[in-house]
């Protein structure tokens, strides 16, 4: 909703992603902040920022599949693995340049998504969740058993070099940020197109959507393709960041993490997905900081306090959100923003709800 007393005067204004001057200000300020932040923080936090960007791209893929099109996916990490392995194999065995493998990683992951999205044509709900879980285990098993691709021990990835110099953390963060912003724009833009509206129609009521002339077959598969394309791009970044990939990096837990992130952020909203990623990753980092203190305080517990606490905290937070605020953080934020936008008249908005 626009601020009080302002109206869209043209279709272009109505369709615009960035609506107000303060939004432009926030956007530009936020981008400058994100791009310069990396220069002042210690290297552990630089790595954290890069992982944040990678997770954000992967979570946006889940957002397109689950939040927009209603096709629940619990196998996103496996599709990231497909993207990462495409990068590694093309880069190491065929010596393709990283810039050539970027679109290929996305497309191959998308095609893998198409294969495992096929059951979506006949089934939904639980059954589709089962088939994406099967995708997770089958893909990772294939990678572990495929000795040409390094098997269980994995394979190295040639790093990105610009003019013969390898990227350092700061430059890699700029690359990640650029890709993440592009992907956020992509995800946001999908919602304004006919395809995006078809996704949402399928999510809300697929029978009604089909009666209205939406091709379910094409729409659902397209959602899988786009969602897994995001995963492939995230996998490309992942591979070039770690420079060595193995199947164990892309566990089932990672897939659950990604789904949990968009639930916490708020289903069906791009901003919410990014918000969820930031919150969960920040929480995880905090748990890492707190864990040594806890394990010093309670010496009886095992040496696995950090791993255990991160599982427990994540589980408790997601359960709390599902039970107390299923619409997620973004919904809360939206209510606060709305209150200020409608300031003198905010009473009405509270009465009717946003």
């Amino acid at each position, binding site marked *: 909703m626009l601020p009080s007393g302002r109206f869209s005067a043209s279709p272009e204004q109505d369709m615009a992603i960035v609506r107000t001057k303060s939004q432009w200000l926030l956007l530009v300020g936020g981008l400058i902040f994100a791009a310069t932040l990396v220069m002042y923080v210690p290297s552990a936090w630089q790595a954290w920022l890069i992982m944040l960007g990678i997770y954000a791209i992967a979570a946006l893929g889940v957002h397109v599949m689950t939040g927009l099109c209603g096709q629940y996916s619990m196998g996103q990490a496996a599709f990231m693995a497909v993207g990462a392995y495409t990068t590694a194999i093309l880069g190491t065995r065929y010596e393709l340049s990283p810039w050539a493998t970027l679109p290929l990683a996305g497309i191959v992951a998308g095609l893998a998504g198409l294969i495992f999205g096929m059951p979506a044509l006949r089934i939904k709900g639980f059954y589709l969740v*089962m088939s994406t879980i099967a995708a997770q285990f089958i893909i990772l*098993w294939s990678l572990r058993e495929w000795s040409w691709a390094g098997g269980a021990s994995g394979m190295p990835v040639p790093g990105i070099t610009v003019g013969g110099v390898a990227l350092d953390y700061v430059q890699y963060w700029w690359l990640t940020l650029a890709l993440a912003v592009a992907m956020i724009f992509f995800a946001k833009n999908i919602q304004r197109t006919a395809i995006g509206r078809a996704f949402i129609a399928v999510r809300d009521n697929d*029978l009604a959507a089909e009666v209205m002339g939406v091709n379910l077959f094409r729409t659902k598969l397209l959602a899988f393709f786009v969602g897994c394309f995001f995963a492939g791009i995230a996998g490309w970044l992942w591979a070039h960041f770690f420079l060595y990939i193995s199947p164990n990096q892309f566990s089932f837990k990672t897939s659950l993490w990604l789904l949990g992130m968009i639930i916490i952020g708020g289903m069906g909203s791009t901003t919410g997905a990014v918000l969820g990623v930031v919150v969960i990753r920040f929480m995880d980092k905090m748990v890492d900081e707190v864990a040594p203190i806890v394990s010093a305080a309670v010496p009886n517990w095992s040496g696995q306090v950090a791993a255990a606490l991160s599982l427990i905290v994540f589980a408790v937070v997601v359960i709390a959100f*599902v039970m107390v605020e299923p619409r997620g953080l973004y919904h809360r934020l939206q209510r606060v923003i709305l209150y200020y936008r409608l300031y003198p008249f905010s009473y009405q908005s509270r009465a009717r709800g946003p």
Partner: protein
Amino acid sequence: MIVDILLQGLLMGGVYALIALGFVMVFKSSQILNLAYGQMIAIAAYFLYWLLTSIGVPTWLGILVLFVSGAALGFILERLFIRPLMGQSFLALLMVTLMLGILFQGIIVLVWGVESFSLPFTPSGMLKIGDWQVSPGASWAFLVSLVVFLLLTLVFRYTRVGLAMKVVAADNEVAQSLGMKVRQIFSLSWVISGFLAAVVGILVGIVWMVTPDVGDIVLGKGLPVLIVGGLNSVPGALFGGLIIGLVESLGGYWAAAVREIVPWVAMLVILLVRPYGLFGQKRIERI
């Protein structure tokens, strides 16, 4: 040789069937897929191990305490987490059960770390029946699961509660309007499921090494059995378990590496061909 392998597969299939039964009990009455079940089994195994080794209670008492606390766990989970979410979208319930599973795994890792064990009363050596060799642990597990299946079938057929559960499973609203206490039946199905988790926890401690990942392994066996047999069929769970057990050990005989993935592939094939399972009712929502 091949007979030994088939026999072992069949025996393991009995355990898989019991794993799937815990899912079926809950799904049948309330249409909830309890993804925490694998970790409930794992925590049961760890709890018994803790009782027997750290506290030092006698085996029979330990098992008794485990059964009671397993049933109590089922009751508490239903009351605290599932009942407030009744009628919500299935994703909410799915996520809550999944996250409860992660919570349990976190607790296991926190308290026991990477400790792995077999339960102290695990029988060792090989059992010989004529010319065939089977592992005694798996045979025991198979016998126990047959007994449990028989008991549950009898309960469903001959008792009032069993009949009430069948009606609730068929249609909640009709059951409610006939004056049955649907919420109590839901609660009961979770209690039974928690009790089954305790039983399977013991069996898992006998047939496998218990590690913090055992919950995921159990889930990885239970879900394919569940889909192959049908989400709401008790005999489906039994036959699905035996089928998956056999197919898995045949796959393992052909190539050891294939063993792990066979159940998932079988599940994917069933999902594509016959999504409601071999024995399930065709109530699945189609497009």
